[in-house]
């Protein structure tokens, strides 16, 4: 069985966000492989090591720097990679992103048994793309999983979704889509020999034309949503301090908890 892992290049979690002309100032951002995607790559590589999978393909849509994210996936143990890169893709919403990823799968022709995603990309943070891909391909899906058992011979997978108050255990026919999160595994550090090997693993570049898509179908032009503006979150208001009879102060505290910050 072959599996595909979707990898996004995202700003490092430590990055301080700055705005310039109402847009993100990307000049000083350091980019990394989306941490949630590391769980996905790790899971795929473990399946390969367990003899259940014979090829792990990493796919990314993004600018040139996405190649580094793919390189990281290859260093963890993916076998080859696909980079979809085209200036026209800038500004694509999640629907377009999913559409392009599906096209790349078709173009490559890989006969996948499973598509693995991160639960979310830590920048766009929508959690959309995996479900959109699953629907476009008509596949079953288990999101936010913390346990996965795959039986390629029987053509099925059992996955535990972490949800409010417990775990939903889903049984799915292959091929299927899963999205990975913390708790599923501990991603390994890429070893030096594997970093060197990653350099020699093939990365296939696709342009829009390669995928048979036109610029009007993607990017801002082809999207259903657009980011109109950015702003920094409002600063915290100064706190308040109440003194008095315990009964009274507790009433005020309860009001604060219930009505203002809504934790009750």
């Amino acid at each position, binding site marked *: 069985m072959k599996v595909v892992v979707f990898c996004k290049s995202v700003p490092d979690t430590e990055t301080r966000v700055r705005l310039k002309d109402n847009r993100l100032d990307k000049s000083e951002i350091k980019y990394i492989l989306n941490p949630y995607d590391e769980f996905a790559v790790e899971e795929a590589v473990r399946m390969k090591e367990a003899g259940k999978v014979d090829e792990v393909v990493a796919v990314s849509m993004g600018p040139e720097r996405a190649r*580094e994210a793919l390189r990281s996936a290859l*260093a963890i143990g993916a076998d080859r990679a696909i980079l979809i890169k085209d200036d026209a893709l800038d500004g694509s919403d999640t629907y377009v992103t999913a559409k392009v990823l599906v096209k790349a799968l078709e173009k490559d022709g890989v006969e996948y048994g499973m598509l693995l995603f991160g639960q979310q990309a830590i920048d766009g943070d929508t959690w959309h793309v995996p479900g959109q891909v699953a629907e476009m391909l008509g596949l079953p899906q288990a999101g936010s999983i913390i346990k996965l058992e795959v039986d390629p011979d029987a053509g099925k997978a059992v996955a535990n979704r972490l949800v409010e108050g417990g775990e939903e255990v889903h049984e799915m026919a292959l091929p299927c889509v899963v999205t990975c999160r913390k708790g599923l595994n501990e991603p390994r550090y890429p*070893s*030096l*020999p594997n970093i060197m090997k990653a*350099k020699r693993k093939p990365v296939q570049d696709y342009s829009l034309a390669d995928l048979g898509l036109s610029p009007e179908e993607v990017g801002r032009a082809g999207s259903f949503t657009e980011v109109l503006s950015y702003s920094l979150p409002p600063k915290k208001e100064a706190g308040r301090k109440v003194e008095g009879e315990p009964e009274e102060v507790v009433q005020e505290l309860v009001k604060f908890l219930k009505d203002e910050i809504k934790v009750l």
Partner: protein
Amino acid sequence: MRFEFTEEQRMVRDMVRRLADEELKPRAAEMDKKGEIFPEIYQQLAELGLFGVYVPEEYGGAGMDVVSYATVVEELSRGCASTGILVSAHTSLVVDPILHYGTEEQKQKFLMPLAKGEKIAAHAMTEPGAGTDVVSIATTAKRDGDHYILNGTKHFITNGKEASIYLVFAMTDKEKRHKGMSAFIVEKDAPGFSIGKLEHKLGIRASSTAELIFENCRIPAENLLGEEGQGFYIAMHCYDGGRIGVAAQAVGIAQAAYEEAVEFAKTRVQFGQPIANFQAIQFKLADMATMIEAARLLYLKAAWLKQEGKPYYQLSAMAKLFASDVAMRVTREAIQVHGGYGFTEEYPVERHYRDAKITEIYEGTSEAQRLTIARNLLKG
């Protein structure tokens, strides 16, 4: 001129930085207290290929370059200085000379397991009576058929406790002075070899520093590294490269202390504001950052020269001299920024301060570096 890491170098740095943050930093204080580097750390370093960074793949290494290696030492040292010197002493002082001077058989037998991290190496030159003046070592090696017999005592040997392969320097011909020194590969189980006392130290306490005793220690003649009489040159080769490692270690220690100082200055409030608002504190931080950057560039240049096969010993001596001084100054100022907190064991800067000192001493004291640099300047 391109001041940029290659993609692989960057990946290595990022990986080791993360390893240091997640695995070393949280344990460094405990390892310092217990006086050992935990076995799982050795295991992990080995699995990641950090014991043979620039050893070619055919000898079990990662096949990378000297710049990657030096960066690995800096990043490890940022998390735990003892772990930094573990890798540096292993690589620069034993792996490198075997790679350079070893026979094919020696490479297969010794380099392979060392590069893979299956075995740890130690370098044994210093003796109670011979420190900076290495030519005065008293350990002797006498040929006996197809064996050598070693007699003498070494001390202050890094990795002495954990190693199973030792590179030992001994006089094969005392009369010939430095031309009478030879280098031998000694395995831990060699008859007549034993480990003596372990030092209690000011800093790098997790790193073992051992006494080694050779009492009619018999080793096969094929364990001679290079030729008889080549030992002094091999040793100098070791230290030229080792200084890059120690310089990188010093920068790692300084970087760690600096980061702590910045964090503390931003959170510590006095006179109603973070102390980072005070110019006296700001200037300290600015000086630290500048010194660290300069020291880093020096060791990176030395590493690059070595990688390119160009003369680098002058640069590596400068890098070590400067970086060790920077480590001392930065760690001292980092404690100052912390005030009384920095003086307690609860904050890591106290450990960084203790760890920094050794970088001015081993692999040639700062005085010895100045001698080397000056001799070089004035020659010819």
